[in-house]
């Protein structure tokens, strides 16, 4: 696994000058999107992309910086969603407590973080495939528990009519406000992950990933770092989970069913887990395939019910041509371009 960030040599210019032009273009596109995209694209395609991107980002943080592939992130997100439905408002009046938003949002995030931390504390004692197995087992247990527990989780049907509060006189479920809400949350989560990855904690975590024994010898508490990484990732997943429930206006056990849990892994892997932007790219690919593959099949005169085939082939193609996801493709292309430069002077040949 490549190091996530490479230090750049030379004189450091002003931070604003260091932002590549591509980022400015991306920001411009994203900010002006409501002007030229329809409501469906805003709410459904982009909103969902940002939400899944955030949940996959939490997995990317654990896998890319911590070397821990956790399948619990979707369950943590669903836990936050459930807690919001239980402590806040929903169509199930006799379970939901109807607390105000400034109370139920922190409660939901904190409980989800605690849940993620406990799972993390169990999982960090294992390595590699065993981490995947233990988190998958807990995710499966969470799914079946929510499906059969009626007193807290309202079993099979879950909670409906869970909508965001009307803050500042804005209905946040309208396409444009919701688009900016998810965009804002996604940007903040992205920025925080980038910041943490360069902060002492993030660097220590990458050290733990590469050589835990040496880090322990240096005096770092390896287990504590890993568990803290789970806590941090859980908060990001929890924010994604809350937005997901607002988007669907409901939550049920299927939200965190095994297919959904695996989807998050697929998104992260397809996008690439070496950088925080990867999960968002993966999420966009996933959402586009998920949304439009039946139409593509029908356009070619094939039966729409085989749409999963197209999704599978799409993912297979990405993983086959680039085992490190779409980001890997990009990086290989860039390095090939760089190779054309003179390695000593940096001048183009």
């Amino acid at each position, binding site marked *: 696994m490549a190091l996530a960030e490479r230090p750049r040599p030379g004189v450091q210019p002003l931070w604003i000058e260091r932002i590549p032009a591509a980022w400015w273009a991306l920001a411009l596109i994203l900010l002006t999107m409501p002007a030229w995209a329809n409501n469906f694209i805003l*709410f*459904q395609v982009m909103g969902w992309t940002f939400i899944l991107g955030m949940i996959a980002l939490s997995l990317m943080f654990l896998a890319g910086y911590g070397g821990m592939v956790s399948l619990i992130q979707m369950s943590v997100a669903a836990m936050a969603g459930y807690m919001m439905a239980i402590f806040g408002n929903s169509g199930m009046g006799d379970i939901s407590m109807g607390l105000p938003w400034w109370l139920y949002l922190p409660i939901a995030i904190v409980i989800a973080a605690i849940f993620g931390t406990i799972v993390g504390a169990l999982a960090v004692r294992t390595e590699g495939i065993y981490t995947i197995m233990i988190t998958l087992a807990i995710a499966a247990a969470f799914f079946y528990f929510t499906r059969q527990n009626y007193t807290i989780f309202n*079993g*099979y049907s879950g909670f*409906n009519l869970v909508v965001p509060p009307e803050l500042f006189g804005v209905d946040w479920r309208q396409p444009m406000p919701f688009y900016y809400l998810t965009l804002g949350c996604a940007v903040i989560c992205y920025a925080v992950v980038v910041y943490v990855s360069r902060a002492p904690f993030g660097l220590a975590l990458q050290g733990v990933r590469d050589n835990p024994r040496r880090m322990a010898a240096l005096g770092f508490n390896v287990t504590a770092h890993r568990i803290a990484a789970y806590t941090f990732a859980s908060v990001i997943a929890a924010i994604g989970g809350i937005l997901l429930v607002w988007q*669907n206006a409901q*939550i049920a056990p*299927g939200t965190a069913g095994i297919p959904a849990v695996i989807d998050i892994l697929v998104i992260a892997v397809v996008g690439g887990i070496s950088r925080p932007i990867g999960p968002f790219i993966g999420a966009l690919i996933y959402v586009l395939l998920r949304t439009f593959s039946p139409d593509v099949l029908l356009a070619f005169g094939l039966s*729409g*019910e085989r749409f999963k085939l197209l999704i599978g082939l799409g993912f297979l193609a990405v993983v086959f041509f680039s085992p490190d996801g779409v980001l890997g493709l990009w990086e290989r292309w860039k390095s090939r371009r760089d190779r054309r430069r003179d390695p000593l002077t940096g001048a183009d040949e």
Partner: protein
Amino acid sequence: MKKALIASVSMAALLVPAGAMAQDTVKFGILVALEGAFAEGGADGVRNVELAIEQAGGMAGGKTIEYVVAPTDTTPDTTVRQARKLIEQDGVDIILGPLSGSEGIAMRDYAKTIPEKTVINGISGALETTWVDPAENFFRFNLDGAQWGAGLGSYVVEEKGWTKVATVAADYSFGYTNFLGFAVDFCRSGGEIVERFWVPLGSSDFGGVIAALPDDVDAIYLGVGGTDAINFLNQYSQAGAETNLIGGTIMADQTVLTSRGRAKEALIGTPTSGALAEDNPDPAWQEYVKAYQDAFPEDERFPSPSLFGVGYYVAALAAIDALNEIDGDLSDGQEKFRAALADDPLDTPLGPVSLNENRQASGTVFINEVQEDGAGGLKNVMVGKAENVNQTLGMSMEDFRAMGLPSRDTPDCAALADAG
């Protein structure tokens, strides 16, 4: 050859005016499960909508019918997502679907956000969908899970003379709802439920329940389906299989009847109730089955239409019928269309169906009995039917509401027996 040429030319001549009116289309969105346990049934749903459109000549109310399929995986999340795509991206006028219970409840809530469009339920059967806070633009032309259980209770009391039963049913919403339909009818006919057992969905060990079943009952009601039912029957026959059985709606379906092993033989003579009877002698049903069999090659369909297929067929029929009535006028937020859907009874292959003020169907429930088919297998034979079963199972709205929503302890059998 010449004939074909003439035919195609005259067809073209017929189609030209239709082509000129091509802007005048009505768009159906078929919201159907094509992933997961119900994928096969869902595909049958799509086939049946195609059949209904074909039978109508591809036209309704003078407009050409177009349709878009939106696949779901039976989770409410995906259902709402796909419904949104149908409305916002594909611009459909009418949604036909969904297929399963929790999807139905999610669609009821979603329907409230699209008051200008109309949703006609596919085959989802949760009671709450049209009972608790129903949506103005959500119509259901199939019976719900509780109605499917009705008629069976009085049948076993009157025809079989079984008045004391113990029940074993699946511990989730369909299990409760389907059981409620049976129990309301059974208790009001003077039956007594001695003990209720609830088993989790997908359990494989029924030993504890079987051992705890009381001996002095006339029959055992089984509200489980699929592999759970097969597992139960296996273990039950190993333990002696002495008592009569009564089946819930999903108990004696094709998965169980065609399963391997001798355990299913415990089912012989078991009455069940449900939305359809395969050997229904009603000409409307026979005609429909024939049309279905003729429309699709044998390897691309079921031997006869499935429950899911019939549900979607009836939904499409209802939409086409109402569109014809109003000459395809969908202006005014589909006001006229909804009025046309609601007003007169619809003739379906399952008999006439009428809607109540919650836009929920009242119709016929069929009582079937499992019998040997003479070739070593088992089949369902229709032994009776209950007509005009309404949403409240013949009770007044107040009484039905007072009874509470289906759960482990609802309905209270003794209270119903006193009232009845």
